[in-house]
């Protein structure tokens, strides 16, 4: 089991001493959040199958503490939109995003979800960032599980850096307001 090449999540920088460990709450919370991101797989098409690969034994998203899928939006931390989002589906995606509890991140997986991909058609939404704020885009059609993991780790980085107060700040509110979310 033990494999020295594994990079364990780094302890937050703090002052270490005998029985003394101080760090700012933000870092600790960020670290905890980053290692316990429960995804909500909004899988509609091909990318959903690659997400299954990501979950399966060969790639094992569980290594990042994310094998507990939350199909209930309330419990999820990362909304992973995988696959084409048509204009018919768009309100549903937005609804799911609204139902999620803060803090929430959005990972847009695959060409279709990011930009519409080859489906530059009357019925396909040209990128989900037209309806909800997206944190990380993963290119590919479908992306390899490696790329999905890359995207996931990018979300982890964001979670680590994020201040616990960010979600109350006016910038964040303004971002949501630009999408018509109060």
């Amino acid at each position, binding site marked *: 089991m033990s494999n020295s090449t594994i990079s364990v999540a780094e302890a937050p920088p703090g002052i270490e001493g005998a029985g003394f460990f101080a760090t700012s709450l933000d870092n600790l919370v960020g670290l905890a959040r980053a290692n316990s991101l429960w995804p909500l797989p909004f899988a509609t098409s*091909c990318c959903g*199958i*690659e997400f299954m690969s990501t979950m*399966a034994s060969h790639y094992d998203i569980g290594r990042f503490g994310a094998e507990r899928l939350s199909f209930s939006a309330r419990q999820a931390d990362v909304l992973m939109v995988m696959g084409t989002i048509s204009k018919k*589906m768009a309100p*549903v995606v937005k609804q799911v995003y609204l139902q999620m509890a803060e803090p929430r991140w959005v990972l847009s997986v695959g060409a279709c979800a990011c930009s519409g991909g*080859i489906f530059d058609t009357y019925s396909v939404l040209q990128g989900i960032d037209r309806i909800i704020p997206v944190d990380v885009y993963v290119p590919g*059609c*479908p992306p390899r599980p490696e790329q999905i993991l890359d995207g996931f780790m990018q979300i982890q980085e964001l979670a680590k850096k994020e201040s616990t107060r960010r979600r109350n700040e006016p910038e964040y509110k303004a971002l949501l307001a630009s999408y018509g979310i109060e």
Partner: protein
Amino acid sequence: MSEIALVNNPNVGLDKTQKGGPYVNELSTLNLGPTHPATHGIFQNILTMDGETIVDAEQTVGYIHRAFEKIAERRPFYQITTLTDRMNYCSAPINNMGWHMTVEKLLGIEVPKRAQYMRVIMMELARLTDHIVCNSILAVDTGALTGFLYVYQWREFIYEIYEEMCGARLTTNMGRFGGMERDFTPVAIEKIQKLLKELPAALKEFEGMVMRNRIFMDRTQNVGGISAERALNYGFTGPNLRAAGVDYDVRAMNPYSSYEDFEFDVPVGTKGDTYDRFLVREEEMWQSLRIIQQAMDNLPEGSYHADAPHYYLPKKQDVYHNMEALIYHFKIVMGEIDAPVGEVYHSVEGGNGELGFHLVSDGGRTPYRLKFRRPGFIYYQAFPEMIKGTTLSDAIVTMSSMNVIAGELDT
């Protein structure tokens, strides 16, 4: 429809004088999907339930409608291959090959035997991936996740073979009009041999976990059944029809790509229920392995593509040095191949049934009209009839055993 509207509408009360009718008082509606885990994110079913028993169901589809047929009217023939990838994405090579064969039929290209055998191998590998996912997801929906992960490892292995052949895992864009774009590499052959040797053990293990497990059998036997007559009336094809007892298999009835050379059985069920669908798919995987084995044993020597310079891209070196090849190259890429005016239909046995391509060509660079006959779209409409009177759990199991692939359903 009208009854459901009655139940949903608070302003219209139920007729209380009507006693013993199908709509007794405690009916409720349950919205299954589109974000429900069992509907794989794309289908919506509004179920009218009496307790946990389903009284009626109304489906909504089209949540990932992407206008394939419209796109196909604006793209040159060879670019449509990328569309077919995304139709039944669980078994993309079958779609690719089916489309290529359709166009070859229109253009009148004769494909050499080796290419045909290679196609058969890739198509049967695709069928394996399709059925692996369908059957193991059925097990997952009954609650047994682990078996899914055991067989999924082999699906990953098949992906590796795809990668050797075309460079992608899922949306393969494999092959060209007139054959394959490259020959089997030694690595690919080695991997296929390994698969033939080791997949049976994994399949046996999976079958051991669920196939004779009473919990699983109770969950699936006599659930979501459909009679052969109704199945035909609903236009079922593929494993779902065969489970009902009709041995309609395009590979056996209208052999294409040298399927007539191979020994294989067409498994049929007896009752048409979920367990039969499971068994038929399971048996088809064994038959696929048999076909691949035969094709590998008898793989003919020769060219892997047709000698059709008008339609098959020349080698890169020739393009650079040979004027004629360069002209063909430009014509093919610009889509200005000389397609005849005509109308063809070609169907292949896809993962879910008869996957047909109805191509109307007016001689232009794009199809005039391309209609995909998607088996999923056609048989999914029988779902309400199949689940009526069963419980919510049965509905979910039935849905996953039907293997409705959204990409195929909604195009």
